[in-house]
Structure formats: structure tokens, C-alpha cells
């Protein structure tokens, strides 16, 4: 049906995405915004590379940060090696060095991890992740110990086409360029024989063997290529922050990229892009507002896993289907009606969490200040008043959400059956 080489819709989408990425720092000039955008771009590449394993090949990895982190360290060392004799052009090409490092790590480590799929793969990836993280502490010469390895991305006497990569906005440009190229390459990969056979191996490894494919080889190749792109993301992060610490390759980073990818939606190519952007915003924006941000993060993840296991991309896909069938209009009022009590519930919960956090973590942490900032009120936490109020709001929100949510669910099921009825 779709044998056009470059469907117009896709070109438009990609062009639009690139234009938006370029336009954003022109609209939001603050340093905070540009830094945020840089982090987003890096995480988009990292999460997409992760989904080459999870979504496309069915490999749940708990150690993907290894490829990202090694890419970052090698990039940083290469940057320092080039030193003053280098040029901005060389610096611009450094993420490729990170990519090659990630790829090489994939060649070596992937040979072990991809022997098996499923739970065994997950466990081995965890083990290898811990192993490399332990190495980072054992070899401070290479990994820089506690302080990490730092460098300076501005080298050489002349600029390259006017770029020195010194200003954050120039760094952002470099990130956009690499992120765009990497994204195009990763998408193209999904449209190749290897990419499709990875899906086949994900769905049914046994049958893939019986149509002539060595599933171990498919997994291995996908891991190597995934390591390449994770390494590119690592290279970008090294240049962006001009410092790489052991944190880059540890289990926490592996966990974050898993969350991003999952929340965004592993079943769609663009899912991890959404997840990376959203979680980065949450990390940085909510992280700046409250000390309890990890708690919100965890709750959000829990909510997503329970309510939308297909991720945000699958939610979008369903709405798109409804829209095409002319049914979205029927659901919109219900969405709005549910949003209101959900906000009430959320307000109550945030109040409880913030006050609880302030009380338990103590004033010394400064959590008390944040609580008042979020709620916009000064509060006496040793008096029952604020607690009762927050509890009341939460209870009201819960009751309303359940009541209206129930009706929305009924409408939702009816709409879905209409949708599927139409199709049959």
C-alpha cells in the first residue's frame, strides 16, 4: 500500500520536528531553557538507542548506560588528547568517537549478553552494568574517581564556520545536528531486513530460527548498533557538560533511560522521543521545584505502567484512530470532565506529599520552603488545619474522579466498541 520511498507525511513530520528543534532556543532564550533543550536532545538519542533493544528486539536491558557512559568517557579523553592543537571541526566530530566506543563495547560485552534472550539477558545486562560500574571505581586513572574527568570543548585558534561551541546555544546546535542524524539513521534501520527480523525475533524467536535466522546473531547485531547510538549520546553529553562522572554509566542512568523509553511507549518509533523529552522536563523542572521530585517521578511511572502500559505514544495512537473514525469529538468532553476532578485529587495529594516531606525530611533540608512555594502558602505543619484541608481536597478529588472516571470509562468502552465495530 505504501511503496512510496518518502511518504510526504513523513517528510513533513521530520522537517517540522527539525524546524521546531531549531526554533525553540530562538523563542526561549534563557540559559535555563537552552540547557534543558540540550539535555532533551541527548536523552532523545539515548532513549531511541535503548528502544532498539527493548521495543524492537524485545531485549530488556538493565545496563544500557554502560555504552552511553563508555562513549562519554572515551569522547572526553579524546577531547583532552586533541588538546590545544585541535579545531572546532574535530570537536564537532567527537560524538562519532563516542559512538565507535559504544559500538566496540557492544562488540565485546554484547557477545556475552546476547547469547540468551528474556530474563537471562536482563540479568546478564544487570551484571555487566554492575561490573563496569565497579571498574569505574577501581580505575580512577581512566574514570577520574569521584570527581570524574573534565575537559574544555573550546579548542583551537580558529572557529569552524563561526562556531567555537563555547556558547551553550552553539552546543545546542551541535546536539540538534547529531540528534537529527542519529534519529534518521535509527529510523532507517527499522526499515531494513535486520530491523524487521529484530521485530520477528522479538515476537517469536523460535520461528525466526526456522525461517533461517540465527536469533543470537540478530540480537548481537542490534546490540552493537544500539551501542553505537548510545555512545553518540554519551559523546554529546561529554561535550555538553564538559565533565563525565561514573554516574554516567551506572545503574541509575540505566534505570532512567528505561523509564523514559517505557513511559514514551516502546511500541512506536517516536515513543522514546516523547518519553525522553517529558522525563527530562520532569527531572529538571519538578526537580527544581521540590525535593520530593523522585517521589512524584515514581508515582508517575507507577501510574503509567498501570493505566497506559503502551506508553504515551499508544495513547496518542488511539486518539488518532478515534479522530480518523470521527469519534474523538465524542470523547473530548469526557476527557475534560475527568481532567477537572483529577486536578483536584492531584492538588490534594501534592499538598499531603509536600507537607509530609517537609515534616519528615526536616526544615534543615529546605523542604519546608518548597512546600510553601508549591502550595503558595505559609503553613503550620504542627497544626491539624493544613493536613485536614489537604486530606479533604484529596478525598473530594478521589470521590469525584471515581464517579466521573467511571462514566468516562463507560463512554470509552462504548466508543471503542463502535470503533472496532466500524472496522469489522
Amino acid at each position: 500500500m505504501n511503496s512510496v520511498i518518502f511518504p510526504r507525511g513523513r517528510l513533513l513530520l521530520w522537517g517540522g520536528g527539525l524546524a521546531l528543534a531549531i526554533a525553540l532556543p530562538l523563542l526561549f532564550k534563557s540559559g535555563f531553557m537552552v540547557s534543558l533543550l540540550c539535555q532533551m536532545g541527548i536523552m532523545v538519542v539515548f532513549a531511541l538507542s535503548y528502544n532498539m533493544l527493548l521495543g524492537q528486539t524485545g531485549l530488556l536491558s538493565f545496563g544500557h548506560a554502560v555504552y552511553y557512559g563508555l562513549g562519554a568517557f572515551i569522547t572526553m579523553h579524546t577531547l583532552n588528547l586533541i588538546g590545544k592543537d585541535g579545531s572546532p571541526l574535530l570537536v564537532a566530530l567527537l560524538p562519532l568517537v563516542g559512538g565507535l566506543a559504544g559500538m566496540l563495547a557492544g562488540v565485546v560485552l554484547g557477545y556475552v549478553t546476547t547469547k540468551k534472550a528474556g530474563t537471562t539477558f536482563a540479568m546478564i545486562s544487570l551484571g555487566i552494568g554492575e561490573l563496569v560500574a565497579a571498574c569505574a571505581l577501581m580505575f580512577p586513572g581512566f574514570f577520574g574517581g569521584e570527581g570524574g574527568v573534565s575537559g574544555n570543548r573550546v579548542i583551537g585558534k580558529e572557529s569552524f564556520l563561526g562556531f567555537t561551541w563555547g556558547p551553550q546555544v552553539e552546543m545546542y546546535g551541535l546536539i540538534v545536528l547529531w540528534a537529527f542524524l542519529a534519529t534518521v539513521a535509527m529510523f532507517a534501520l527499522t526499515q531494513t531486513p535486520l530491523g524487521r527480523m529484530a521485530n520477528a525475533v522479538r515476537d517469536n524467536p523460535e520461528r525466526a530460527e526456522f525461517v533461517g535466522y540465527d536469533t543470537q546473531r540478530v540480537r548481537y547485531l542490534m546490540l552493537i548498533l544500539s551501542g553505537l547510538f548510545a555512545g553518540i549520546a554519551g559523546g554529546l553529553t561529554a561535550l555538553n557538560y564538559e565533565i563525565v562522572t561514573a554516574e554516567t554509566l551506572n545503574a541509575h542512568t540505566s534505570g532512567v533511560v528505561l523509564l523514559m523509553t517505557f513511559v514514551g511507549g516502546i511500541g512506536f518509533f517516536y515513543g522514546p522521543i516523547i518519553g525522553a523529552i517529558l522525563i527530562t522536563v520532569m527531572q529538571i523542572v519538578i526537580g527544581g521545584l521540590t525535593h520530593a521530585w523522585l517521589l512524584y517521578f515514581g508515582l508517575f511511572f507507577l501510574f503509567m505502567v498501570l493505566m497506559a502500559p503502551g506508553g504515551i505514544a499508544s495513547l496518542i495512537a488511539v486518539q488518532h484512530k478515534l479522530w480518523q473514525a470521527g469519534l474523538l469529538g465524542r470523547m473530548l468532553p469526557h476527557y475534560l470532565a475527568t481532567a477537572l476532578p483529577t486536578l483536584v485529587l492531584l492538588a490534594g495529594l501534592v499538598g499531603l506529599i509536600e507537607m509530609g516531606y517537609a515534616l519528615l525530611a526536616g526544615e534543615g533540608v529546605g523542604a519546608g520552603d518548597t512546600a510553601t512555594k508549591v502550595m503558595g502558602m505559609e503553613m503550620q505543619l504542627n497544626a491539624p488545619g493544613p493536613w485536614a484541608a489537604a486530606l479533604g481536597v484529596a478525598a473530594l478529588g478521589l470521590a469525584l474522579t471515581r464517579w466521573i472516571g467511571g462514566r468516562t470509562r463507560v463512554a470509552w468502552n462504548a466508543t471503542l466498541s463502535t470503533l472496532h465495530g466500524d472496522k469489522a
Partner: protein
Amino acid sequence: MNSPAIRVSGLKKNFGASEIIRGVDLDIQRGERHAIIGPNGAGKSTLFHLISARLPVTAGAIELKGENVVGLKPFEIARRGLSRSFQITNIFHNLSVFENLRCAVLWSLGYRYSFWQRLSGLKDARQRAEAVMEEIGLSRRRDTPAGILSYAEQRALEIGITIASGADVILLDEPTAGMSNTETEEAVAMIRRVTEGKTLVMVEHDMGVVFGLADRISVLVYGQIIATDAPAAIRCNAAVQEAYLGTSLHSGIAS
């Protein structure tokens, strides 16, 4: 060229202490349509699993077109031109019908693990997949995910994936199991069509199908082949009569 398509000799398979295949000798000639019948649990599927390397052999030899294949991996045997279907449908559930078939032809067309070619540019793969789709009658389900096809459609796809690679030795494990009479008739006609000129080994319970399709029949009972012969001879074989006494063979032959 005169070596048989499949030669099994002294084949044994134990699961723990229980012997399931207890010394099977079997020659399948090239271009032959061979049916394997026998009661439930006789070891027919296990025999297929051994030939196709889904299970490791305990003892004995298996030759494919004159070459020893014991110890090879399933994909290596597939690459040597043996393709099999499964009794329990074994397809790529999240991929569309078309993608299922295209995946099944990629290796045989030489695309291997290519990540530098666009799938949509591979005209031969598309045409081959579409031709098979036409043959198994699933063209109007082209973009439907395989997981939501009807049972009969999934069985057809199962056969489609098996024959798509163009392998010249085909093993089908109960291709018509669970089908209605009309569905069975259509499936048999389709199997006859798509295995034209190939070596076909088929496990089948429906005696009408077996006696209509097979050039020769082997009867597997309790892990051993008690008779291999032309349908007419099998019909009046005393040992077979005994093994099947009171079961569906009589009625199957009668009908």
C-alpha cells in the same frame, strides 16, 4: 541427486527416562508426498522436532539430501532447504500478514542481516511475499496483525511462512487440525498446490486427507514405525489394522 530427501536411521529420543522415539528408520524420496500417521502421543511431532533440530537427537542419524544434519541448528537446516510448520501455530503475532511472509523469504533471497538496504526497495522480497499471500488466500488480510486473524487464517499463514522460502523439503505437522470440513478441503487443495514438485512430509489425522494426498504412508506407533507403504497396502496391513483397531482408520478408509 539420487540420495533420498530425508534419510533417518536408528533414530532415538529420550525425555529423561522415557523413550519417546525408539529406533526409527525412514527414507523419504525426493518429490514424494509422505504421510505419517499414528495415535496421539506416538511421537510424530517429536520426530519432526528431531529432523528440524528443534530438539537434540539422543542417538541415530539424520541425512538431508545426502548430508548429515545431526547437531546443526534449526536455522542451518532451514538454510539447507528444509522448512517446517508447527502443530501449534507459530507465527509472528505483532507483524502483519505481509510482514510475516516477507520475514520468511528474506534469508532465502540472500538479504541476510542487511542493515544497509531498504525493505521497501527489495522488489523480489515483496513480490515473493505477495505471491505466497495470494496462494494461501490471505491477500485481503495483508495488513492485519497475524495475532488477530481467525484460527483457519492463522493455520494458512503457518503454511505460508513454511513454504515462502521456497524450500524443497517441507514438513507439515497436522496442518488441518481443528478445521471444519470445508476449511480442510480448501487447505488440502492449497497444500497440494503450493507443494507441487517438492518433497512433502505431513503428519495428519484426517484419513480422507491422508489417503487422498499421500504417495506413501508411514505408521508410527509408540515411537516406532510399524509400516511404510503405499496407501492401498497400508489399508490392508494387519499390524496397522491391529494398532488402529476400533479407531478412526476404518471409518477414514471407508469414507
